[in-house]
Each structure stands twice: as structure tokens, then as C-alpha cells.
């Protein structure tokens, strides 16, 4: 019995990471941490892409990773800018305090 690490293992790991990231968004109220969770999710996506590409014998998976990465980077820039702007006004990064609009 030999355990071969199939792409499925990677993808399962990725799924777990994705789930952790998603859970983080639901339970953390610090915008920065939530943001990190999104990065975590995007990384899980990337891992899936690479593993699937490898399993399928396609380089497209790895190509996709670059673009997800760029998007992640752009998001970070904008997201952090928003957080900074909010912090300037409120001295807090907690999203729970942002519920002026509801209903």
C-alpha cells in the first residue's frame, strides 16, 4: 500500500483553506483580518488551479494563478485604502460599528 499524493489531496486541502477563510469572514470583525481571510480564500483558489492543471495536464491552471494574484494585489491596495480612510474618521477597523444603514 503506497500512498500517492493525488491532485485531489491538494484540492481537498485547498477546499479546507477556502472554508477556513470563509469562516473567518463570518466570525472576525476586524476589517483587516477579514481581508486577510479573503487572501486566504484566493490562495486556496490558486492551489486548486495548480492542482487541477496538473491533474489535467494543462498549464492553464498555472496561468490563471497569475491573474488571480494580480487581482488579489489590486484588491489589497484598494481595500487597504478604504480601511485607512475609515480608520481616519472612526479610529476603528471594526466592521461591526458600521451599521448606520440597515433594514
Amino acid at each position, binding site marked *: 500500500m503506497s500512498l500517492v499524493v493525488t491532485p*485531489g489531496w491538494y484540492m481537498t486541502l485547498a477546499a479546507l483553506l477556502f472554508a477556513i477563510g470563509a469562516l473567518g469572514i*463570518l466570525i*472576525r470583525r476586524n476589517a483587516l483580518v477579514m481581508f*486577510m*481571510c479573503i487572501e486566504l480564500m484566493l*490562495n486556496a483558489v490558486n492551489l486548486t488551479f495548480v492542482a487541477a492543471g496538473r491533474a489535467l495536464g494543462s498549464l492553464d491552471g498555472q496561468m490563471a494563478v497569475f491573474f488571480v494574484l494580480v487581482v488579489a494585489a489590486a484588491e489589497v491596495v*484598494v481595500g487597504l485604502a478604504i480601511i485607512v480612510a475609515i480608520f481616519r474618521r472612526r479610529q476603528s477597523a471594526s466592521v461591526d460599528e458600521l451599521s448606520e444603514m440597515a433594514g
Partner: protein
Amino acid sequence: MVELIVFALMAGASLTGGVTVIRARNPVYSAMGLLATLFAIAVLYVLQLAHFVAAVQVIVYAGAVMTLFLFVIMLIGVDKEENTAETIPHQRRLALAVGLIAAGLGIALVARGRFSWVPLVVTPAGAAQTNGTVQALAEPMFTDWVLAFEATALLLTIAAAGAIALASTRKPILSRVPPGGETGPGS
């Protein structure tokens, strides 16, 4: 066997990192957890012969993105313990329930043999092509994917323009606020 061991280690590291991200009370620790995950994933990339991707992962993510994160954490000074006790009623319970249902769904699928990560049959010839060297990736990058590559230019423009627009402290010309009404840092 080596792959198995490395995978096991890195999987453990990445999951630990992930859990740290969502468990740590101090955002700095969260960032560190994320960093660990990123590195572990980079190793997993290498394990799957995605060398260039691994390199980019380390450079862009660990290098640039995480730095930015830490910079902002320091800038706005949230590098301290925070209260992670839940304040929204039922939030955790609901989140847990959703997670359990999702997990149950996945387990049910797998248990009934209705699940395969890669349902299509892979030709052995194709498998060899996935050695993600710089050269192997360069060709699609500049032929088929060239438009996507160019499109990232738009994205980065947005990032730049957006960051400036959001974070700049320039004042509007036609302020609707009467003089003296606004007490910002500039006055």
C-alpha cells in the same frame, strides 16, 4: 513518499496558518499566520512542479502584499489584542451551522461515491506538460493569454487611481460644507 511527507507537513502548516488567521486576537499574529500559509502553499506549488508560480507567490504575496498588510496594521495602530467575543447574536451558531451543512454535503457526496475532484480522464502525455518553468509559462502568457496580461494594466490603473482618490486628503473645490463647518486635520 517524499511528496507525501512534504505534503503532510505543508498541509499542516497551511491549515495551522489559516486557523491562526481567524483565531489570533492580535492582527499581527493573523498576518503571521497568513504568511505561514502563503509559504506553505508556495512549497506545495513546487511540489506540483509549478516553479514559477511558487516564485511569484513568494515574491508578490509574501513580499509585497504581506508587507502592505503589516504596514497598514502598524499605520493605523491596531497591532494589539482585540476582543474577539461575538457580539452579533447567533452569528457563530449560524456560521457553524452553514459550515456543518456544507461539510455534511461534501461528506455525503464522497461517501456515496458521487464525487471525484477530476472527473475527466487525463492523458499521460498531457501530464508531462505541466512543468511550470518560466519558459513553459512564457509562451501562453505572451500568445493566448496576452490580452489577459494587458487587461491587468487596467486593474493596476484602478488600484492606483483608487488608492489616491480614497486616501488622498485633497479637499474638494466646491465643498458643500460651509466654511468653518468642517474640522478636519487640514484646518
